[in-house]
């Protein structure tokens, strides 16, 4: 069974992103970039399924500018077998990314497609579900456990009330939540090996997708700043402040 994993290049999660002074966009110059943490979990899960003998090949795909090949190499170093780079300029919207991934799914015919539940830049949480609708596949979003069982997949999902378990026909989509696994670190020999793994470059035209835009970003601004308050001496003073100054307890 083949697994397809989608990964995205994003600003590293430790970076505190700021709006540019003119409010036109976020400041991304000289900012450290990395594989989106949820996508890393997706790669790890596919590699574990391969190690368990459930999956025979792990194909990793990324949609973006040339620089996202770095993140494909990262995924290859973690254990994916080959990469596909769908080269596009700028920042495609989730619907367009889902259409491009649908094109890749049509070509590759994976039984399992694993994506991160959201990217930590746009915080949209859309692409996996959109791909599910376009490809006519069932979805197990926000997964904390998956189990392949013959021609179906059992997915445990993290939902507002707790946990929910679903059964999906294969092929199916999974989007990862934080507790699905803890990704490994790539070893140096594996990083070297990853450089020799195949990486194909394709384009929206090759995939038969016409790119379009539905959303215009008019501007960005910092959120209202919260200023630090005061330090209280002890619990008694804290309770007094909450009662008499903030008036949030009685």
């Amino acid at each position: 069974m083949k697994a397809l994993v989608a990964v995205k290049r994003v600003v590293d999660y430790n970076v505190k992103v700021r709006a540019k002074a003119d409010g036109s966009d976020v400041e991304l110059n000289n900012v450290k970039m990395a594989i989106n943490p949820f996508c890393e979990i997706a790669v790890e899960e596919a590699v574990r399924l391969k190690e368990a003998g459930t999956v025979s090949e792990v194909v990793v795909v990324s949609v973006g500018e040339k620089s996202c090949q770095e993140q494909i190499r990262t995924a290859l170093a973690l254990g994916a077998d080959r990469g596909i780079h769908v080269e596009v300029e700028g920042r495609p919207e989730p619907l367009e990314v889902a259409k491009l991934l649908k094109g890749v799914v049509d070509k590759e015919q994976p039984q399992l497609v694993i994506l991160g539940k959201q990217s930590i830049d746009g915080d949209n949480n859309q692409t996996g579900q959109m791909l599910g609708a376009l490809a006519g596949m069932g979805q197990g979003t926000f997964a904390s456990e998956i189990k392949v069982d013959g021609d179906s997949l059992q997915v445990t999902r993290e939902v507002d009330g707790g946990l929910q378990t679903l059964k999906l026909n294969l092929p199916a989509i999974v989007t990862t939540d934080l507790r699905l696994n803890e990704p490994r670190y790539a070893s140096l020999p594996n990083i070297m090996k990853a450089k020799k793994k195949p990486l194909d470059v394709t384009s929206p035209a090759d995939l038969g997708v016409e790119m379009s835009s539905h959303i215009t970003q008019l501007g960005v601004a910092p959120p209202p700043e919260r200023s630090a308050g005061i330090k209280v001496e002890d619990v008694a003073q804290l309770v007094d402040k909450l009662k008499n100054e903030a008036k949030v307890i009685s």
Partner: protein
Amino acid sequence: MTTLVIAEHDNTSLKPATLNAVAAAQAIGGDIDILVAGADCGAAAEAAAAVPGIGKVLAADNAAYANQLAENVSLLIADVASAYDNVVAPATTSGKNIMPRVAALMDVAQISDIISVDSPDTFKRPIYAGNVIATVQSSDAKKVITVRTTAFDAVAETGGTAAVEAVDAVHDAGLSSFISEEVAESDRPELTAASVVISGGRGMQNGDNFQLLEGIADKLGAAIGASRAAVDAGFVPNDYQVGQTGKIVAPDLYVAVGISGAIQHLAGMKDSKVIVAINKDEDAPIFQVADYGLVADLFTALPELEAAL
């Protein structure tokens, strides 16, 4: 202009998030109907009909919509939504699960997690863990929108007398089925709707120590939350997590105990009215957003606090 609000419910009653979504729909303007999709969901449909200012309630009552399976419900919503300009749902795990499928079926973008409505086609939404607020304009004729519930004050629950109309369309994609769920039973208020939240982090050291928070939560009528670190460490279940990718809360009072204050956690609670931080590390970033900071060992401070309340 017409807007369809997707109700969040448990078949017998409406979840409060629905009332926040209706508020966002009102900010967009125009006529508002509510869709209640479920199985044996008549009572939830009646509850939706009591929300003031609603034109009508569409009730799709069929086994295919039990458990809100995204594959089935998205087909239904896309079908019903053809008669509307906007489809609005709360950005709960259910809304996040279903609505992007709806948008893809309708071939439009989804505008996720809006926090304000500037005009019927222009919205504000947080990006980069809320470190930046983007203003975005949609050029789609039909809009699919999810709403950050804490950013819109809930509309009244009762006072309306809308008609309930049955939707007979049955969409069963046949792709998925429900097996089981583990839902935590609790007498405490729901985390996202509580007026007081007390959360524990890695500093709690283990799950048993969360009992130290329970006594205080009982006295304050608070919900209990946690940081990602505490959930990852297995101290408490995933539904406690407050943060960028967990639950977003904005209570009147948020008490962070043993939480250092990573940006991902702050993204989930920094719109709280009053923030209290209890941490023994005086340099912890949580103090930069706290109205009242107490530098103390939580194992001494928490029993003292419980006694003082």
